[in-house]
């Protein structure tokens, strides 16, 4: 069948099961958008307010579904606006294919209108990039983009296509997606070695990260915890891997993690890192992290082994495949003394209400948790509210807590919530944000309105950039430089101006009332502006580079 380059893009997308894409049109992308018009009965294109929002939407879609998120943008600023979203996906290993149109081939390199070398710009934040200047290379690049995005450690791939290629024609024969690269192989000896280390250990702790969610290994993880009677701490990216009610769940580890998680990792004689990367927000001090423990590290990316923390046993493998091989070799062993000691530390972590305000973040989050069902997807922006939701929500499932971990992208939330809405249309999407983060990309409200998405946005409004404000308070003697901007945004009125519904809450009762009303909305977004105190801090806290000994509790 004879197709032009843009129609070829559509066919390849459909071959890969893509029925929803996010993006924003423009001059160089006109042909692609003409094809989207033609294929609109098969591919739903969601137009956002800004390309950054589209990139976060593709990311949120991928996080919620496990499928590849697809985003489309035009050349120049359209393409550069994607970079934050691409970098966000890269840092959290989220499969994404970004398709950009560039100026026509004869204009490449001539500083043409809206020309930018996006395939160069995005090299450091993608797994790979393509610049396609010849229609004969387009099909292979697109197929490989999906293969690369989903092989091994997942991540974003960018395909930049010159405008003439989007119009050029070629014969197309329907095909199949390329198989993903096989996961790295591991040996029987490695499995036995890990099993032996676990079996002799007295005080093991599992430290699990986003890799467990990415390869869908929560079940195997919980089986290992039960069989080995081994407690587990999780990273922000793995919230939901270990059920809230699991009697061996220590909670989140790291900078704002629980006392139990951090103390247990410090006291452990064996640390089993699964799909985690010893980032500086968890292994705050790489020399002293888990200093009493032998360390096992299982990760699909060989370059993560011994990158941040030197381990005693590193295995490059898909965590799910490895755990499946490992479980039969694990001896059931009673470690109840250790588990109850570690869980005893957990009991000591109470809700922190550091201010005398009428409405506290912990109350808001608890009410949201109580008033929503298990299928609810929680999406966050970045800052204090993100840590509070990580701490106080009762995470039960993977893919239901969507947050920018590695890059820490303020403004991620609304776009991601829109993406998650399309990925899981039967689930309620709750977007937690702060007044700082929300100001960055609240323009996407127009998208949520035009798409009739009942996303509920809960704004933890403390009038300051809370997380930085907190650091300035603790480490900079209270010099609140540029974190107390004195903004006067009337969020409920702004919501109404966008065509959404807005509420304001100053007390728990007002919040409960507004949230109950919000839950009844079926076809429009709601914002609830929650007034909280600016001296409400995220605790506990281990300062950057510190250890559990340096933990600030209250």
């Amino acid at each position, binding site marked *: 069948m004879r197709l032009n380059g843009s129609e070829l893009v559509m066919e390849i997308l459909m071959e890969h099961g893509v029925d929803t894409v996010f993006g924003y049109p423009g001059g160089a992308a006109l042909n692609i958008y003409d094809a989207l018009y033609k294929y609109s009965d098969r591919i739903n294109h969601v137009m956002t307010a800004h390309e950054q929002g589209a990139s976060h939407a593709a990311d949120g879609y991928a996080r919620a579904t496990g499928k590849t998120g697809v985003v489309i943008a035009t050349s120049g600023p359209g393409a550069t606006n994607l970079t934050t979203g691409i970098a966000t996906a890269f840092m959290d290993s989220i499969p994404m294919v970004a398709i950009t149109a560039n100026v026509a081939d004869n204009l490449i390199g001539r500083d043409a209108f809206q020309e930018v070398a996006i395939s160069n710009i995005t090299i450091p934040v993608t797994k790979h990039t393509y*610049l396609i200047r010849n229609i004969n290379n387009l099909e292979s690049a697109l197929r490989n983009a999906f293969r690369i995005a989903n092989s091994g450690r997942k991540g974003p791939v960018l395909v930049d296509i010159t405008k003439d290629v989007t119009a050029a024609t070629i014969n197309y024969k329907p095909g199949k997606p390329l198989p993903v690269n096989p996961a790295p192989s591991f040996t029987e000896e490695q499995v036995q070695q890990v099993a032996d280390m676990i079996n002799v250990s007295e005080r093991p702790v599992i430290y699990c990260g986003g890799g467990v969610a990415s390869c869908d290994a929560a079940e195997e993880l919980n089986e290992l915890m039960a069989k080995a009677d081994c407690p587990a701490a999780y990273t922000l990216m793995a919230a939901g891997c270990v059920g809230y009610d699991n009697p061996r769940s220590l909670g989140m580890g790291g900078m704002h993690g629980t006392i139990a998680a951090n103390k247990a990792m410090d006291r452990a004689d064996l640390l089993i890192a699964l799909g985690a990367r010893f980032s500086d927000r968890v292994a705050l001090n790489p020399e002293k992290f888990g200093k009493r423990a032998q360390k096992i590290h299982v990760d699909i*990316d060989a*370059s993560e082994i011994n*990158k941040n923390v030197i381990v005693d046993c590193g295995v490059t493998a898909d965590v799910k495949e490895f755990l499946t091989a490992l479980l039969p070799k694990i001896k059931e062993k009673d470690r109840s003394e250790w588990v109850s000691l570690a869980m005893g530390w957990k009991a000591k972590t109470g809700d922190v209400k550091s201010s005398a305000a009428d409405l506290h973040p912990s109350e808001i989050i608890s009410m949201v948790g109580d008033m929503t069902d298990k299928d609810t997807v929680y999406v966050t922006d970045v800052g204090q509210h993100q840590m509070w939701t990580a701490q106080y929500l009762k995470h039960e499932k993977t893919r239901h807590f969507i947050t920018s971990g590695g890059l820490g992208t303020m403004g991620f939330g609304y776009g991601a919530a829109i993406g998650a809405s399309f990925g899981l249309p039967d689930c309620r999407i709750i977007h937690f944000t702060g007044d700082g983060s929300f100001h960055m990309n609240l323009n996407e409200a127009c998208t949520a309105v035009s798409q009739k998405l009942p996303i509920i946005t809960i704004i933890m409004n403390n009038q300051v950039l809370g997380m930085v404000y907190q650091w300035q308070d603790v480490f900079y003697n209270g010099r609140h430089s540029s974190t107390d901007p004195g903004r006067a945004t009337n969020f409920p009125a702004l919501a109404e101006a966008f065509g959404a519904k807005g509420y304001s809450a100053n007390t728990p009762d007002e919040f409960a009332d507004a949230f109950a009303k919000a839950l009844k909305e079926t076809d429009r977004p709601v914002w609830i502006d929650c007034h909280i105190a600016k001296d409400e801090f995220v605790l506990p806290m281990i300062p950057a580079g510190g250890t559990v000994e340096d933990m600030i509790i209250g």
Partner: protein
Amino acid sequence: MENNERTGVFSMLVTNEAGVAARLTSLYARRGYNIDSFTASPTNDPKLTRITLVLTGDDRKFNQIFTQTAKQEFVHSISLMEEHDLYRELLLLKIKASKKERSEIKEIVDIYRGRIVDLSNKSLIVEVTGESEKIDGFMNMMENYQIIDVCRTGITGLRRGDRGLGEE
């Protein structure tokens, strides 16, 4: 060089396409690895380019460089070369040389098995091939003369034995 740091030579086969050098140097720059030398050339397979890279580091850093490089889409195979493998470098050196000096320069060039490849009334160009240490030695000898221009290719090398890169 810090403690335990040494020179490491990585030999790799990469896809022969535009931008590969930019991707590699971008990777090393953002990960904080200094490249001491970089050589690239086509191979018998038109789809592949051979790159030889020299970097400084310790075992841990070399392991990072190896694994970070190996996972790139355009890298087909990579090897950290060993001491006993085969290394070569080529030097072109333009020096001022009066008629009087020519013969003594030629004597030194002969000892290093080099060749004089260009000659004018006041200068000449020498070509020397060999391991880097040999080139360093020759350069030392030439410091007694007035050097006009110097160009070294940087190290290129092959593993010894029957197997090719990627078959190891």
